[in-house]
């Protein structure tokens, strides 16, 4: 049987199953194969906070979405072309996102009466015609896997566990993915259990062969490699890029990195990653709590280290007092907040942009802190270096506001040349003929000397109590306090940040769509759609939220309408309205998920049409 091969320019696949089914691993491997093949790609893992939610239930569904294309893409895709549903719960939880006509590959073995009942199916949807508007491929993935592994010395349960690799093999056949990497990956992963390695490889190959031979799949698809800018690429998640950015910041600042951190979703992976790179002189300290994490980082910064703490919203709330101390003592410190859905515990594995105002104002007193927000997973690398640059140069704590979507999502990253990275080194204070004054300021940056213990002649005391400008002695003088409040603010206001760039190809758009942080991809994809259909819209994206680029007001005022989509209830809009008196149009959805390009394109079109 000769099978038909169809060319596609892009595909969105979603793998969905129980949290124990290995969907994240399956997605990761498919992504690795896709990256190796040379497509552009973007991924969206989506999983419950519970490690093992009750099997077969809707809350236990874990999924991994991958968008790959023969051209450059900006998002993990609005809706899947293919859903791999490992059980009824996975089908039910994801069907609503699936456009009519999409493919569903369902593991029929799991569509038992009991599993159907668990999620409220009265009848088996694979059999009752209710899925007639989709293309259903009913595949007994579990039993096919068990059959394929009959020759192995494995329990039935262990054999069944390889069903995700069978599914991966089938999908790899369906989309012509290379297989070598997956095979060598499995060999390495199970190096100590060769039987398991062989079984997984056999299941993977059986899945491939099943696609090749069965009549259930008459067409396979090709998505040609993308023409990306020349360079060396690797696939990278936001958390990994951020960790690498911190390591690069340590190298480029010539300061030893000290991370004080307490485990919290979705930031823990940064702690894990940095703890693996001790040969860079990195000290990672898993503290007793969030407060100790930032406290230790600040203590290390006092001693001349590049102090970093990593956390998410609830941790930020706990660290606030220490951040205030860092503002007062004017020491460099990097505060990484990987935002998640709140308030309180909220939805730990879901994304949100709701910590902006907390980062801006969440401390007692007039306590300004610079804020940098990365826009894509790979941008987390550059944003981390930028945050470190500001911290070191201006002797201030700096917020780096990532979020769950950036943290766990991945994309191809064109590797920078190390020689192109900025030099962000600084100099510690040294003894001079003049009497040392710890709060004497650099006239350009307004930063104070970084005088570290061990430097003779610079012995001094700092602390949280207000101090006299210059000498740093405790001071309750009213005029001095007013001066210091203004100086601390002026220092932050005066940070050199690049101008806000506007993408307005013909220069005649009347509507500007503005964003910050992880909404970059969906906004840019939506803007492309509008332009493709002949609409005119300008786009600008803020990386520095505090201070804002000097031309921000000018940009906002040069458009008739400014649309600002945010995954919060309008936090940046509030700031911009207050600062520039511009009537921003907000678009807000707070569903724990990124925006969809189609959704934003509709919103932008509405704003254009209302002109």
């Amino acid at each position, binding site marked *: 049987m000769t099978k038909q091969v169809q060319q596609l320019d892009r595909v969105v696949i979603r793998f969905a199953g129980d949290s124990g089914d290995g969907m994240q691993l399956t997605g990761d491997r498919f992504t690795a194969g896709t*990256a*190796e093949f*040379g497509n552009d790609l973007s991924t969206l893992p989506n999983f419950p906070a519970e490690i093992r939610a009750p099997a077969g239930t809707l809350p236990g569904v874990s999924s991994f979405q991958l968008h790959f294309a023969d051209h450059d893409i900006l998002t993990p895709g609005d809706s899947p072309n293919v859903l791999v549903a490992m059980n009824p719960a996975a089908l039910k939880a994801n069907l609503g996102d699936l456009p009519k006509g999409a493919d569903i590959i369902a593991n029929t073995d799991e569509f038992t009466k009991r599993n159907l009942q668990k999620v409220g199916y009265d009848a088996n949807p694979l059999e009752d015609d209710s899925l007639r508007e989709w293309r259903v491929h009913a595949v007994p993935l579990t039993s096919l896997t068990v059959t394929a592994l009959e020759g192995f010395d494995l329990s039935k349960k262990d054999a069944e566990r390889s069903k995700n690799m069978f599914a991966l093999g089938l999908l790899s056949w369906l989309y012509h993915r290379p297989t070598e*990497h997956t095979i060598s990956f499995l060999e390495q992963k199970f190096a100590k259990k060769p039987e398991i390695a062989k079984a997984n490889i056999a299941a993977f190959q059986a899945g491939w062969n099943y696609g090749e031979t069965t009549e259930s799949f008459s067409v396979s698809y090709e998505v040609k490699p993308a*023409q*990306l*800018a*020349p*360079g*060396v*690429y*690797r696939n*990278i998640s936001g958390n990994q890029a951020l960790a*690498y950015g911190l*390591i690069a910041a340590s*190298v480029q600042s010539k300061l*030893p990195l*000290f991370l*004080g951190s307490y485990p919290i979703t979705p930031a823990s992976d940064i702690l894990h990653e940095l703890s693996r*790179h*001790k*040969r*860079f002189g990195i*000290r990672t*300290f898993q*503290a*007793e*709590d969030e*407060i*100790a994490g930032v*406290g*230790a*980082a*600040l*203590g*290390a*910064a*006092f*001693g001349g*280290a590049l*102090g970093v703490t990593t956390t998410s919203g609830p941790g930020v709330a706990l660290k606030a*007092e*220490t951040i*205030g*101390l860092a503002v007062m*003592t004017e020491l460099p410190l990097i505060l990484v907040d990987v935002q998640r859905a709140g308030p309180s515990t909220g939805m730990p594995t879901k994304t949100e942009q709701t910590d902006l105002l907390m980062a801006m104002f969440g401390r007692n007193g007039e306590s300004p802190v610079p804020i940098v927000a990365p826009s894509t997973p790979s941008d987390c690398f550059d944003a981390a270096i930028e945050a470190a640059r500001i911290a070191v140069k201006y002797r201030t704590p700096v917020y780096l506001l990532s979020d769950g979507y950036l943290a766990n999502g991945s994309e191809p990253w064109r*590797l*920078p040349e*190390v020689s192109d990275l900025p030099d962000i080194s600084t100099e510690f204070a040294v003894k001079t003929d003049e009497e040392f004054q710890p709060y004497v300021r650099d006239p350009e940056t307004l930063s104070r000397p970084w005088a570290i*213990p*061990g430097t*003779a*002649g610079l*012995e*001094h*005391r700092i*602390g*949280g109590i207000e101090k006299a400008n210059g000498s740093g*002695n*405790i001071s309750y003088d009213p005029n001095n306090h007013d001066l210091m409040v203004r100086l601390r603010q002026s220092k932050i206001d005066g940070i050199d940040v690049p101008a806000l760039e506007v993408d307005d190809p013909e220069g005649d758009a009347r509507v500007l769509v503005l964003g910050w942080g992880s909404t970059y991809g969906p906004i840019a994809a939506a803007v492309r759609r509008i332009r493709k259909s002949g609409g005119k819209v300008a786009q600008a994206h803020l990386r520095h939220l505090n201070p804002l680029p000097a031309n921000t007001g000018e940009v906002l005022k040069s458009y008739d309408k400014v649309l600002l989509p945010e995954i919060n209830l309008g936090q940046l809009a509030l700031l911009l309205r207050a600062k520039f008196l511009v009537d921003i149009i907000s678009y807000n959805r707070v569903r724990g998920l990124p925006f969809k390009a189609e959704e934003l394109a509709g919103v932008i079109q509405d704003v254009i049409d209302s002109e």
Partner: protein
Amino acid sequence: MSDTLNGKGLALVPKTDAKQTLKDFKSDQEVRWCPGCGDYAILAAVQSFLPELGLRRENIVFVSGIGCSSRFPYYLDTYGFHSIHGRAPAIATGLASSRPDLSVWVITGDGDALSIGGNHLIHALRRNVNLNILLFNNRIYGLTKGQYSPTSEIGKITKSTPMGSLDKPFNPISLALGAEASFVARTIDSDRKHLQSVLREATAHRGTSLVEIYQNCNIFNDNAFEQLKDPEIRDDITLRLEHGQPIASASKAVVRAANGGLDVVPLAEAGDRVLVHDAHNPDPSVAFALSRLDEPAFEHVPIGIFRQVERPAYDTLMAEQLEEAVAQKGPGDLSDLLMGGDTWRIG
């Protein structure tokens, strides 16, 4: 393991040949405690003790939290960090674990260390961070003007407890021993000689040393430790702890009790049953039993070093991991790191 703790506490801190005096450690700041406060005596004891160490002044750092005692760093001409309430051990942990060349001191009080900062204290102790923690215990909140503290006795009448406090107090020594601190001692503000002898041992110890200092707050809790200062009775109730010596006061002695614990009996009756103090015992349970002897009413109070055992300091262990990582794979190279994943080339 390079840490032989006893005597090597300051081995990594640079020394000076210059002769130092008390004056070298006095800062130019006006001391602002209430007249008669026990803190003055402790400050004077520390200032006159530091020259003995012969350390370079710039390699000494005092870190404090919030409270009367936490003003201490301002009055010493060393590096100092007056931080926030309860967090000094956390801040000092970051400093001490990344800078083994520093002598890092934490100055704290009973409220700062045992209430708001209790968590940081016990974790610093269990990690054995290279710190000297001086816990000024006056059994009251002074700076906030007289509320009961976590070491105040039950029934304490204060502004916030007009009908008496309800909470059972912490015994700082018991708490520290429970956290398996490697060095735990108690001394008193009014006995400079003893205070300095404890500091001598504490600074010689590499790892965390926790020194509880009974300190009189003459404004809000005057005479809290009067029994230990009253010449009429102090020699009877003070049980001096000295390693290798019998534990006894002028009239009483510590013996093993029939129930496995410890008893205090008249010296005359003790005979050869008097317990000989072993500060180096790896098992903290006898030290713990000693720490309970002052309960409930200060009838006999052990003073001195309860426990002093060798355990690697946290900074040493951390540094060893970094060295091991370099030994295994060589120093980090940024370019190699970035190129380290599954990469592919376009163009």
